[in-house]
């Protein structure tokens, strides 16, 4: 039918990338690289903590990567990549000055507005610290708007701790509690050893007036959520960031279905009570 009114208005094609350049590249652990990008000529536009971009290595492919930088500096598009697949490995090899494709930012981010006036507990596992870092920058930039801020971070071993120097800097602040734990360590490590869930019972937050932001491997998130509930936090106060296969990032390709939701369109950050049953169902 020729009824033009039935169609969405013409917009830039969401599937066509802009060109961006790598400005800086830093190694942040075994196989982990942080890339700072700058989009050619375009208005940076800003992003919300928890959102992600689709990054293309021309001729190789495209992958979803969370923004891991400071939302107050949106012209520096910071992404932290683990070089484990063909595209992410190629991405990690792009030298400063090199061109990549950029689409985004996409998705629903962390509930920063709801966090105002409350204690905020960030529970990160492994690379899951990267999507939480923009939220942390925001919390620290507007520190007076929030109650206690607690970061509980678990990773595999001491040499895999992300953003280590920054964590050490934050640790010197008196207005944030940071606990780092690793799954195992050699004798020269003097921090905690044990799974991240063991940090939750001791964390300083008021469960009746707190929000928890959780990001990490799905198994770790399941256990972290049950430890948060044991600590008295309501399901409505727990948010998590989900990972699923994504090709389009705009709700059109069907890959990131998670039962009733499309992770790219409805997430990646979800309030836990919306996903409760799904996390317990295998292979959904």
């Amino acid at each position, binding site marked *: 039918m020729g009824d033009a009114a039935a169609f969405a208005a013409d917009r830039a094609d969401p599937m066509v990338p802009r060109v961006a350049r790598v400005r800086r590249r830093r190694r942040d652990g075994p196989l982990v690289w942080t890339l700072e990008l700058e989009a050619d000529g375009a208005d940076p536009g800003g992003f919300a903590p928890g959102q992600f971009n689709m990054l293309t290595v021309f001729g190789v492919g495209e992958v979803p990567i969370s923004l891991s930088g400071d939302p107050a500096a949106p012209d520096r598009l910071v992404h932290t990549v*683990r070089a484990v697949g063909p595209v992410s490995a190629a991405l990690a090899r792009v030298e400063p000055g090199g061109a990549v494709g950029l689409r985004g930012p996409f998705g629903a981010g962390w509930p920063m507005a709801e966090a105002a006036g409350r204690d905020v507990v960030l529970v990160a596992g492994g690379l899951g610290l990267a999507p939480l870092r923009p939220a942390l920058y925001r919390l620290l930039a507007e520190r007076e708007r929030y109650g206690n801020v607690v970061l509980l971070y678990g990773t595999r071993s001491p040499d895999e701790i992300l953003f280590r120097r920054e964590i050490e800097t934050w640790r010197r602040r008196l207005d944030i509690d940071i606990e780092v734990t690793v*799954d195992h360590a*050699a004798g020269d490590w003097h921090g*905690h*050893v044990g799974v991240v869930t063991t940090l939750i019972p001791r964390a300083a937050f008021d469960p009746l007036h707190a929000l928890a932001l959780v990001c990490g491997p799905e198994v770790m998130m399941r256990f972290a959520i049950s430890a948060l509930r044991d600590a008295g936090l309501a399901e409505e106060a727990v948010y998590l960031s989900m990972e699923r296969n994504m090709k389009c990032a705009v709700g059109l390709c069907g890959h990131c279905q998670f039962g009733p939701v499309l992770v790219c369109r409805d997430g990646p950050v979800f309030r836990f009570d919306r996903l409760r049953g799904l996390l317990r169902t295998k292979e959904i």
Partner: protein
Amino acid sequence: MEGLERIIREHPFFAGLEERFTALVCGCAKNVRFEAAQYLFHEGGPADEFYLLRHGRVALELRAPGRGAVTFQTLRESEIVGVSWLIPPYRWTYDAKALELVRAIAIDAACLRRKCEADHDLGYDMMKRVMPVLVQRLQAARLQILDVYGSHG
């Protein structure tokens, strides 16, 4: 002696302990301290004491050829070090090392086990306190086995 009783009653491991049991436990307890890097016990040794941590952190270690000592868990104040004391053959299955100055209450395991045998109510009470610690450590070990942050996902 009254100071020891108060410390034991206030330690989370013994939260809500009946008064008559407190006296029984107290009779097997003493104050101890370990310097940084000093070992509380070694793998294979008899589990004849366990520790209520009051201050300082303790690393649980296993030794693997070519890897040296690998820490798989750290414990801190308000936790207990040692669960093998209640389960035959009463032997330690790892090393426990003080990471800094550690103050603790050491409980004589043989002494407490005798009292548990004589008074099964006390024995059951001890079981109910040790079992959750065991279960938590088992769950943590499972998560570590999964190696969820590893390169396979």
